[in-house]
């Protein structure tokens, strides 16, 4: 059992408290979901469970945290390693050894488990998590889902009864995250472990969670049964939102529950055409990104026969596509299906082994990256790779100089994307969403006709994501061609005009979002699953129908 007794945490004297007077009693054998906006203290709360906060991170913790009767003030994380297992966001960053088997044994070696027991536990863990076939594989060669399962196994093998996971699926595609969540569920149901999991994409976990901890961002924490918490939560998965909009008798937590209650709703919607209704609310009072400039962008990106080889591996094979001006095209597919390679090829940075691409009739495939840059701009997955100056202001000035724009252009765009960022802030201190907006602003300063984004929703919470949706649709409305690679099906359901699905380096499906998303088994958003066979994608879209009547 985990007990928080009047716990407050701040990272420096005089700074506001990240957690204020938190009292919690977490019983054994539950799956507990921790939710809250970015920066609301989720990681601090999770870190406090095994003493990582404040022993490792520094900071001031007042009050008492006890885990199975052990006070974390007296026991640093290493002394709690046999009680609490921690799995971090990027499994690869936490691996100490090279191979699956050694990694599973590492924690036990530290605890001094005797070799015979160690051997049996490693074998058991391999079986529980379905890793037996991978036992001698190098960790770096595994897929993201496999790596995360190894990370879970490596703490599980030490015999812990409490697992703490900080956004374990944020970097994974839908299939891999299902795989990881299934493994976790099995641990909760079959082995009775306590699992505490922080997650931005509530739709993945909400239906499984017994209880939910909600952080309000001001330091206060509420805890309760998941359904009860969902009734008042500001952050809810689409299925709950649908339940609220359609006024179901009870808040549904899963697609299954919602589908059972949605019979009358499906009937009501059956004679409406989803295409007539907006999927996201219209922009309200937001100053347009380039309101003061004449809109001179209206060019399609046309690519044909693109081939990208890495050594003997063909990452992209003979891909032809068209990103129409004024539309948002979403590229989907599992990790390693060639989506990112394709984006990089279209920037001219990744050399192609064949194929042509052009914007506005200008052939770009043989051009250096510096030439391609004036037509096509990419916001890469690690957006902060583009940032290197010590303040937001300097980054913006550099962007103006680089692109030959009028001074202040970048700052104006940034203000439209993410208002009220202090100019003197160091870019590394910005939140994920703000960093993304800064990089987007820098790339937009050059006024490209085509803007590409690689996994922009990583680490964004629902409000940050919906403002990104607004930003993208404005950019499309100004006539740009927008291309987005994402795993987030709910995000795709909101923004996509056109969807391209890739597998093994090839395009396997192209269509409008309602064609592709509502019929797919993997990529269907929650609303589409609830209202199948009708092609509705977002709760707002359903709301538009209900509100007009």
């Amino acid at each position, binding site marked *: 059992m985990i007990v928080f007794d009047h716990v407050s945490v701040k990272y420096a004297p005089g700074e506001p408290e990240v957690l204020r007077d938190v009292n919690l009693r977490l019983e054994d054998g539950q799956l507990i979901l921790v939710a809250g906006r970015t920066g609301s203290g989720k990681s601090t709360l999770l870190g406090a469970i095994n003493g990582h906060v404040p022993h490792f991170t520094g900071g001031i913790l007042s009050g008492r945290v006890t885990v199975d009767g052990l006070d974390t003030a007296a026991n640093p*994380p*290493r002394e709690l390693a046999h009680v609490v297992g921690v799995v971090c966001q990027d499994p690869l960053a*936490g691996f*100490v050894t*090279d191979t699956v088997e050694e990694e599973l044994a590492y924690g036990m070696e530290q605890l001094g488990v005797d070799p015979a027991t160690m051997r049996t536990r490693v074998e058991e863990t391999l079986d529980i998590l379905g890793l037996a076939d991978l036992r001698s594989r190098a960790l770096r060669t595994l897929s993201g889902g496999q790596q995360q399962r190894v990370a879970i196994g490596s703490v599980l093998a030490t015999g812990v009864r409490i697992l703490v996971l900080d956004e374990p699926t944020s970097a994974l595609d839908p299939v891999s995250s299902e795989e990881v969540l299934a493994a976790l569920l099995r641990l909760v149901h079959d082995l009775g472990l306590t699992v505490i999991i922080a997650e931005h994409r509530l739709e993945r976990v909400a239906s499984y969670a017994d209880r939910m901890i909600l952080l309000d961002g001001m330091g206060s924490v509420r805890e309760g049964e998941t359904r009860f918490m969902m009734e008042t939560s500001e952050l809810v998965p689409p299925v709950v939102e649908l339940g609220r909009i359609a006024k179901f008798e009870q808040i549904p937590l899963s697609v299954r529950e919602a589908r059972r209650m949605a019979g009358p709703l499906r009937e009501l919607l059956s004679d409406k055409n989803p295409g007539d209704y907006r999927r996201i609310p219209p922009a309200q009072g937001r100053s347009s990104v380039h309101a003061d400039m004449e809109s001179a962008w209206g060019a399609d990106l046309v690519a044909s026969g693109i081939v990208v080889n890495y050594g003997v591996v063909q990452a992209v094979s003979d891909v032809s596509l068209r990103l129409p001006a004024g539309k948002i095209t979403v590229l989907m597919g599992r990790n390693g299906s060639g989506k990112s390679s394709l984006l990089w090829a279209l920037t001219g940075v990744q050399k192609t082994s064949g194929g042509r691409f052009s914007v506005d009739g200008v052939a770009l495939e043989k051009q250096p990256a510096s030439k391609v840059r004036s037509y096509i*701009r990419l916001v*890469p997955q690690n957006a902060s790779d583009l940032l290197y100056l010590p303040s937001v202001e300097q980054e913006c000035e550099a962007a103006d100089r680089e692109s030959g724009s009028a001074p202040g252009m970048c700052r104006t765009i940034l203000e439209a994307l993410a208002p009220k960022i202090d100019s003197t802030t160091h870019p590394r201190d910005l939140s994920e969403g703000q960093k993304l907006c800064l990089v987007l602003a820098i790339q937009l300063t050059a006024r490209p006709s085509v803007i590409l984004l690689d996994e922009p929703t990583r680490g964004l919470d629902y409000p940050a994501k919906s403002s990104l949706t607004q930003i993208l649709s404005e950019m499309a409305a100004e006539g740009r061609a927008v291309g987005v690679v994402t795993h987030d099906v709910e995000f795709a359901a909101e923004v996509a005009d056109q969807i391209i699905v890739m597998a093994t380096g090839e395009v396997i499906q192209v269509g409008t979002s309602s064609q592709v998303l509502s019929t797919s088994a993997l990529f269907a958003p929650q609303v589409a699953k609830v209202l199948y066979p009708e092609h509705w994608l977002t709760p707002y879209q359903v709301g538009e129908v209900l509100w007009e009547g």
Partner: protein
Amino acid sequence: MTPVGVSTVPSTRPAAQGRSIQAYAARFFAPRLLHPGAWWAWAIGCAVVAARTTNLAILALVITVICYTVVSRRTQAPWALAFRLYVYLAILIVVLRVFFRMMFAPYGPTVILELPTLTGPGFLSAISLFGPVSAEALLGAVASALQLAAMVLAIGAANALANPKRLLAAVPGALYEWGTVVVIALSIFPQLAESLVRVGRARQLRAEAGRRRVHLIRNVAMPVLSDGLDRSLVLAGAMDSRGYGRSASMGNSGRWLTSVLLVTSSLALCVGAYGLLDTGFTPIWMGAPMIILGLMVGLVGLRLSGRRVMRTRYRPDSMKAPEWMVLATAAAACGGIIVLGMTTPEVAFPPIPPLTWPPISLFSLVVVVVLLLPALLAPKNRDGKGQNS
């Protein structure tokens, strides 16, 4: 021996015996990775043999044996593929050595190549380069170059045959922390290289503000280093959470004693090494006795500090018959080459001139064949390509 088939009572003994020998052989030759220490000992044996002879024939044979062993017993791991680099280095050594010999005083009775003599101008006239090149000078150069090349190849072979990380894992408990540091450094470097590539690519997405070097360092080094720092912190945090550094408590006096022992041991080893290398004026006790003393004090110190470690090892590499066999070949070859040098110095160190074929004795061949035994008798490596892909 019981004759088989004579007795009507079915006797199980001969069959059982046959089975047990077969079973033993099967166990002996079962493919697996040998203890890394065994391969390192064998490599050192090869290096010692190469160092103790200038006989071209023996050196050539030793190099052949090293290469053959690597080809037949190496793993598929990335570090094993680096053996090629050691081969290039060895070739470079031979080429450079021969070239320098041609440059500086290549004189001798049998001239095979007439090069013009270059004499320095003015006060440098005493120095002359090149000139008539003799076969004797070249052979001498090749012999000393092959010695060095063989030693380099031996080190390369040890790397190719044994996982360097497994070797670190086999260090005594007291040195475990150092071993971990090295392992992490080894895994951080490829990651740094990865993020260097990533940031370099990302740079091209944004117009560069300037092409000056200062900018390059700031634009690329800053993100890479902060990335590396972040990764290291995450890793350190993860290791902390998983129990790294948990230790049974040890009194202050105990810690003090181990420190004193380890410092004393290192001092003794330094003095001993000096005594061994400087054979001119140092008293005899400063040589081997000092080394032995240093080793013994060091062992006690390691034992003591190892006692506070409560870690265990998962499937530790064990020393079994094949390992002892490899160790024995290394020891036998070392002994053999020393005996060869003492009994028949004209075979171990054939004088040049006269210009003849290098002499070979049966005993010298035995030494080389002993080094070849691990390539024929040691178990094959388990991690073939099939299992790794």
